[in-house]
């Protein structure tokens, strides 16, 4: 029995897919020559001034709307002052006091139940530059190299309420949030390129207590797996501390992926004094009338809406619908097949099996070619266990499914007389086993089927084989 409630809140940084940076016209493209996408503004040269990117505001609003936030007509920018070599002005322009979006939530399925995680705020801020350390990590590096290409890329920071109850839920929330952001097209959310980053706060409290425990901030969570593992580790660590009757330190800890544990970051509480104050270079941001409505009209169907539509319209199971929502490219194929009149579950059956593996490797087939495959299955031209072979060929040739089957001579053996004769041969060749079967050793049934299939090189129509075999064996 767990003795503690786990309380988790997340802070997610998302790089926006704008062409230019938040406050200047430099490109946001990933992977350029170092320090080649910089100008006086994003380098923080003396005298350079910021000018806010309209598209970044639009995307932040879009994210806010998709997350059911209040969008504030008036918001403001502030300076967060701290020294770090990757921060060109030694302050970050952010929205501390009056953020653009507040008080939203995200709904998602966690297990079988619908979970809702509150979004406290979403604000706009600028990204820092990138550091390349001379050693393996920052701690064992004598020096570091700074590239300011990334400096000034627009970010939104999404802050959740401490609503999340387990490391697993944190992971699922983050996956669903990422999906939502992909749906609305504001970010490419690549964790490996840092365009989606997550910090987590976690604390434990005695079961049922209303008093929050001391929270620990976790950093360097570079993947969904890292998020879940670090939180799981931390949950156990804090639990052990509390079991001993000790107190958890309020601190920041970093996740060490290699060693699979969190380590305290060396910091003194008083050193982190960001001296926030209103950014004097930027007047307040007032949204022009009608803008939010315009943006609202561009928001596509969101994951949860799509999920219930798939269940409702295509009769898909939660599991199937979730697959198609999570992989919208597959979802789209399913929708196309459905539009051609195919039953959702049939399409799902096809798309979620062997096809999924092949498509991830080789790219998708057209819905028409997939429909051709469904058709010959429906017609009984091939048996379901031949589907994989036909699929494989579909990826490798331009022929239709029917043409492939005919060319390869894979059509199913459905001639009752021929099969009857074959079955007769199989049974006669195994008289002893037939006796045993009839005496009650029913698991031998599979053996007989196998023999028939082998004799037909797998082309026998399994349904007919079954019918005939059962009749013959008298069961």
């Amino acid at each position, binding site marked *: 029995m767990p003795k503690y409630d786990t309380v988790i809140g997340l802070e997610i940084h998302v790089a926006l897919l704008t062409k230019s940076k938040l406050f200047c016209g430099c490109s946001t493209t990933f992977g350029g020559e170092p320090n080649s996408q910089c100008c*006086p503004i994003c*380098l*923080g*040269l*003396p*005298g*350079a*001034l*910021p*000018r*806010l990117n309209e598209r970044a505001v639009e995307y932040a609003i879009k994210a806010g709307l998709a997350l059911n936030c209040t969008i504030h007509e008036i918001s403001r920018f502030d*300076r967060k*002052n701290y*020294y770090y*070599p990757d921060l*060109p*002005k*030694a*302050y970050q322009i952010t929205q501390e006091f009056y953020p653009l979006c507040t008080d939203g939530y995200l709904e998602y399925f966690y297990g079988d139940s619908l979970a809702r995680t509150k979004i406290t705020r979403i604000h706009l801020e600028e990204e820092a530059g990138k550091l390349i350390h001379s050693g393996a990590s920052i701690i064992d590096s004598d020096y*570091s190299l*700074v590239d*300011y290409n990334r400096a000034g890329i627009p970010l939104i920071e999404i802050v959740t309420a401490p609503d999340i109850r387990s490391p697993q839920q944190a992971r699922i929330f983050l996956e669903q949030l990422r999906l939502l952001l992909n749906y609305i097209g504001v970010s490419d959310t690549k964790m490996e390129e840092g365009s989606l980053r997550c910090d987590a706060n976690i604390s434990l409290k005695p079961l049922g207590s209303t008093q929050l425990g001391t929270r620990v901030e976790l950093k360097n969570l570079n993947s969904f797996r890292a998020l879940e593992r670090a939180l799981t580790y931390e949950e156990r660590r804090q639990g052990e501390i509390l079991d001993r009757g000790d107190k958890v330190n309020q601190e920041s800890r970093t996740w060490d992926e290699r060693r699979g544990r969190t380590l305290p970051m060396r910091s003194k509480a008083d050193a982190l*004094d*960001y*001296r*926030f*104050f*209103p950014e*004097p*270079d*930027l*007047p307040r941001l007032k949204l022009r009338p009608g803008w939010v409505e315009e943006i609202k009209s561009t928001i596509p169907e969101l994951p949860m809406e799509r999920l219930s539509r798939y269940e409702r319209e295509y009769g898909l199971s939660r599991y199937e619908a979730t697959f198609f929502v999570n992989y919208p490219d597959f979802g789209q194929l399913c929708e196309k097949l459905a539009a051609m009149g195919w039953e959702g579950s049939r399409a799902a059956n096809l798309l979620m099996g062997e096809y999924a593996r092949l498509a991830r490797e080789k790219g998708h087939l057209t819905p028409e070619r997939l429909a051709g495959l469904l058709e010959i299955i429906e017609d009984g031209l091939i048996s379901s266990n031949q589907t994989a072979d036909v699929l494989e060929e579909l990826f490798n040739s331009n022929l239709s499914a029917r043409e492939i089957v005919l060319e390869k001579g894979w059509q199913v053996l459905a001639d009752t007389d021929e099969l009857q004769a074959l079955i007769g041969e199989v049974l006669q060749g195994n008289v002893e086993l037939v006796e045993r079967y009839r005496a009650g050793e029913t698991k031998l049934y599979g053996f007989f089927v196998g023999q028939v299939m082998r004799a037909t090189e797998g082309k026998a129509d399994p349904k007919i084989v079954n019918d005939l075999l059962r009749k013959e064996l008298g069961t």
Partner: protein
Amino acid sequence: MRKTAALLEKRQISSEELVKQYLTRIEEADPQINAFITCSGEEALAQARDADRRRARGEALSPWDGIPIAVKDNISTMGLRTTCASKFLAEYVPVFDAAVVENVRKAGLPILGKTNLDEFAMGSSSEYSAFGVTKNPHDLERVAGGSSGGSAAAVAAGEAPWALGTDTGGSIRQPAAFCGVVGLKPTYGRVSRYGVVALAPSLDQVGPLATCVEDAAILFSLLAGPDRRDAISSQSRPFSLPEWDLDSVRGLRVGVPKEFFGSGLNPEVEQAVNACLGELERLGAQLQSISLYTNEYAIETYLTIVTAEASSCLARFDGVRYGRRVEAADSNTMFAKSRAAGFGPEVKRRIMLGTYVLSAKQYKLFYEQAQRVRALIQQDVAQALKQVDLIVTPTTPNTAFKIGEKRNPLEMYLSDLYTALANLSGIPALSLPCGRDSRGLPIGIQFMGRHFEEELLFQAAYAVEQTQRRGEDA
């Protein structure tokens, strides 16, 4: 400047000759005055020759094409070092021009050089410069004022016909008053700050210094207007030269705030300002005693805001991308050593003050309270400017003080006693010479008006200037 422009237009003088005259004057006078940190004579001459060629082809960029200018050294000039009078930036060469520099280049003005200032514009005497003090051309033992002391002294000494300065709490007007030239701090947001090294972004403005009102207005007309690179000035308005008519003063309601004429005001200054007020009255203005009670808090409010913003604006000087660097084993020590080596005492003092008033525990008590008082000041000023069209005060309580005389920083801060109000409220303010004290030192009178009503300041100042000239001629 109209005369010079006419001479250029009639080819009675070439821009090259004109620039040479100023360069000669700089060569003669500047070793004593030290108005310039960097003289860009060669470039100025090349620009002058370009101007002459344009004029010969009938393609002058403006009537002022070929008339040179001096630029305060906290305004970025592409390819020409911009030191902010700081050791930290002693070798810093900008890769871009400030918007105002672009503007004067577009009008064809050759740049004579970069003028001295208090380091990062923090000061009121130009004594806090890493490049030596600028001396007052009227008395070499006295300060030129600051922080735009170099620009004011250069114009006063005839080393430049006009100059650009910046004004955060009085930094154009106070040295203009001390050196006997005209200086304008424009409406906040009227002139782009792009490329001006920030001291306090919510207060900083660029403005003209010139020998007469009309020249100041001409230069201002080149500077004012919207600039999409400065979010604050993106909704600015351009400025066109007003009618120069003494009658424009008739019927003007001129407010005289009693708080600016109290104790601490040098009687000679008071007398000179009162004489000017008398002139305005004779010209048909209606004088009205008003109150600006919030000026009592102006200096402390100003200091809190200016130090806070400056501490943040100057944080970027960390030795990574440009400027001074003192090597150390780790980055934080490198930052701290570089900054310690690069900044002078006044800059350090203000960074310390500013860091303190912004720190988490003090923020509400100091910075936020100062912003609230500032809002109160704005209301007070707005209220006054509903009753009157112009506010007239002395520019400074005293005339130029002696070099080294003010050792206590707080005493120095009081130099902005009459000028900070305009920055805090964002209104335009102009300083005009109005006579001299018994030592022969210039006295300044300040005109303040409503947002974007620089025209009225110029007209009133022009009227006073003309009556003074008539007086001198008589």
